[in-house]
């Protein structure tokens, strides 16, 4: 830990001393020599400009082919770490931890005009333990080693109207990204909510905002209309080996100038239709839900439907999402004669202040409403966040981050949790 702190200090100091030498950076900022706020309102959230670059296959819109590709530039590698303390408090007491909460290794760039790639690997972090019950001796890593993203984007197959993304990627139906949210811990409850799991009965373990393996078409038109449509393996069961595909469609319309990220307004609707494998057919009919392979006959459907808005006024951004979910009755551990239906959403208000968006304040409200027979899983969560950015250097940034969440689970006598996190968010 000490080493990391010293390292951070050295890097930060270096940036102060030699303002034009900062070339160790998040991949895109490094490529162009930009400061973070070129593409982010404040990192990690994209502004309109960053959104347009993302929509255009990581190329500057209108400049396709006019920029250097990965073979002409320094390696487009970036690292993000979040390290700090967390305090977890329930009725029974309080625990604290000092952790590396996340570490992302990222590489991305343009291979050739209109062909680019994105690659994110999260290494496994065993130490210290992730949960609040003390050191887990490596059995409960705070982060799993995972290939979060590895995809190729073929952009402008029809200019503006058709881009193709293949591989593992963050799907477009996920309109308000938890990956680029300011909040560190899983901020949007509804994204991870499903019918409850059970060790004996099949259950749905689809996670709405997890990355997906598949193929996606997207388009963004001059009149502000955007769409995304994809065929993916799903992420609930064994996503790498699923013969039964999930489908989705999402539509957005933006109004005014901007893409609704930091200017202009945006409304959207999304629909996801998936299949959760419940068993392998023979020889024995046992449940394999979390890891099993798919077979059409015993896959059960589920869907997620919803709408979202992002409204901007000056440097305020209000994002809200409402979603309805249905998991097939076969996935309902309470009553296998009834589909499991739930709804919920969130509203987040972000404010960027001080000069060059140095200070970021945000409040977030989450709500999940399960069916009445499962109301002990009702969630209400109230979060607030403050981030202060130490600078806005060429592709290096450090943010001091403090985040608080009060979470109530259950209806009548809810279980109450308080989570406070203070950390250093370091991108380079």
């Amino acid at each position, binding site marked *: 830990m000490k080493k990391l702190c010293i390292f951070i200090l050295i890097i930060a100091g270096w940036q102060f001393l*030699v*303002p*034009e030498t900062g*070339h160790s950076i998040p991949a895109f900022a*490094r*490529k*162009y*020599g*930009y*400061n*973070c*706020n*070129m593409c982010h309102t404040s990192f990690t959230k994209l*502004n*309109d*400009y960053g959104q*347009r670059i993302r929509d*255009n296959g990581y190329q*500057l*819109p*209108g*400049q396709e082919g*006019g*920029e*250097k590709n*990965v*073979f*002409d*530039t*320094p*390696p*487009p*590698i970036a690292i993000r770490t979040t390290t700090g303390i967390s305090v977890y408090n329930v009725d029974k007491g309080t625990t604290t931890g000092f952790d590396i909460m996340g570490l992302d290794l990222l*590489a991305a*760039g343009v*291979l050739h005009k209109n062909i680019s*790639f994105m*690659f994110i690997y999260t290494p496994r972090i065993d130490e210290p333990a992730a949960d609040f019950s003390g050191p887990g001796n490596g059995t409960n890593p705070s982060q799993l080693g995972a*290939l979060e993203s*590895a*995809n*190729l984007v073929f952009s402008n197959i029809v200019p503006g109207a058709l881009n193709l993304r293949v*591989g*593992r990627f963050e799907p477009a139906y996920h309109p308000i990204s938890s990956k680029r949210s300011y909040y560190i811990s899983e901020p949007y409850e509804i994204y991870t909510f499903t019918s409850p799991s059970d060790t004996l009965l099949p259950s749905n373990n689809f996670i709405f905002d997890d990355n997906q393996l598949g193929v996606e078409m997207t388009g963004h038109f*001059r009149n502000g209309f955007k769409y995304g449509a994809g065929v993916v393996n799903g992420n609930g069961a064994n996503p790498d080996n699923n013969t039964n595909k999930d489908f989705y469609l999402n539509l957005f319309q933006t109004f005014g*100038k*901007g*893409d609704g990220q*930091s*200017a*202009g307004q945006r409304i959207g609707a999304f629909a996801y239709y998936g299949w959760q494998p419940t068993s392998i057919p023979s020889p024995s009919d046992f449940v394999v839900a979390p890891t099993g392979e798919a077979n059409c006959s015993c896959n059960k459907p589920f869907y997620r439907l919803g709408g979202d808005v992002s409204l901007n006024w*000056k*440097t305020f951004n209000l994002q809200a999402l409402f979603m309805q979910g249905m998991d097939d009755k076969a996935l309902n551990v309470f009553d296998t004669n009834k589909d499991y239906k739930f709804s919920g959403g969130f509203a987040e208000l972000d404010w*960027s202040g001080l*000069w*060059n*968006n140095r200070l970021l304040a945000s409040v977030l409200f989450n709500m999940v409403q399960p069916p009445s027979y499962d109301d002990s899983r009702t969630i209400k969560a109230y979060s607030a966040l403050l981030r202060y950015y130490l600078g*806005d250097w*060429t592709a290096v940034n450090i943010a001091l981050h403090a985040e608080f969440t009060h979470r109530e689970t259950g209806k009548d006598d809810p279980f109450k949790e308080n989570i406070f996190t203070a950390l250093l968010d370091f991108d380079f």
Partner: protein
Amino acid sequence: MRYLYVLAGITLLLLPSFALAGDNTPTPPPATMVTTNKLGPERIGNLPPVPVPPSNPQTSQKILLGKQLYFDTRLSKDNTISCASCHSPSMGWSDAGPTSSGINKQLGGRRSPPVSNSAYNPLQFWDGRAPSLEEQAKGPIQNPIEMGNTHLVMLRTVQDIPGYADEFKHAFGESNLTIDQVADAIAAFERTVVTTDSPFDRYVKGDISALTSQEKKGLEIFNGKGHCTTCHWGGNLSDGRFHNLGAPQTGPLKEDNGRYDVTKDPQDQGKFKTPTIRDVALRAPYLHSGSDKTLEDVVEFYNKGGGKGVSSLDPMMVPLGLSKSEVKALVAFMTRAMTSLNPEVANVKPIPPSDLPK
């Protein structure tokens, strides 16, 4: 997915690390390379040496000759207008504007862009219709609303001035005066009108005290929240490309198609070349028709996301959400920090007619 790992691995291993050495290369790149410059890890600041085309090497005789021609009104039809009338050293190598007036006080449709640092433009004019300074210099002489002359008459005039005839012979070693020689000489002079030493340049070279804290904030916004370096990048703070910002059209022209008139590509409708930010404070008013009086006006224009109701607005134009103090910081950065201190350029005085060749 494995090939992606392999690709990333290869990328890591093979690519030379952090090769930013190009900035300090001692030999000027050939002019043709400038147009193929691609956006990459390109910092603002650090002007490379002026690109000189092999066909027109710099010589001191040529430069002096070019300077005389530049300030000589006898190149125009009625002996009233020189290049310097519209590109005056005392007005940031531009003119009072908003658009330029030529012979007989005729008003042109576009703002006079600066001649200073124009040597770095891959293409000349707001619409890029001239591929080089040499080609560009031939234009104004026979433009009916600028110098209103013909090349033939101008050449005869110059040839009949013995002082010039001598100098041309020295500079080019030929007794037959041609329009190409005139253009070469003017272009050679223009390649010396280069401003490399602003407080910003000193800051980039490591003199941290060269900028005030407000100017530093301005620089940070210029390369960040303001998105300015998207287009104003590289040593000359210009990508040399064409963009439609939806800038208001004022002055005698009702409509200006910009780059479209050159390429006839509908995508180029209303696009104009990105001007340099160097010495920008010396040459108000701004934009292609001089529609914006001050730098504040320009920044406020960007802050709103550019022009209204323009269907082919550049997709890189988005509202910026800049606060008042951020606008001020940007303006401060573009004002003092970007104004050059090069005495050899700042102190260029028009050559009085009495000192011109007789």
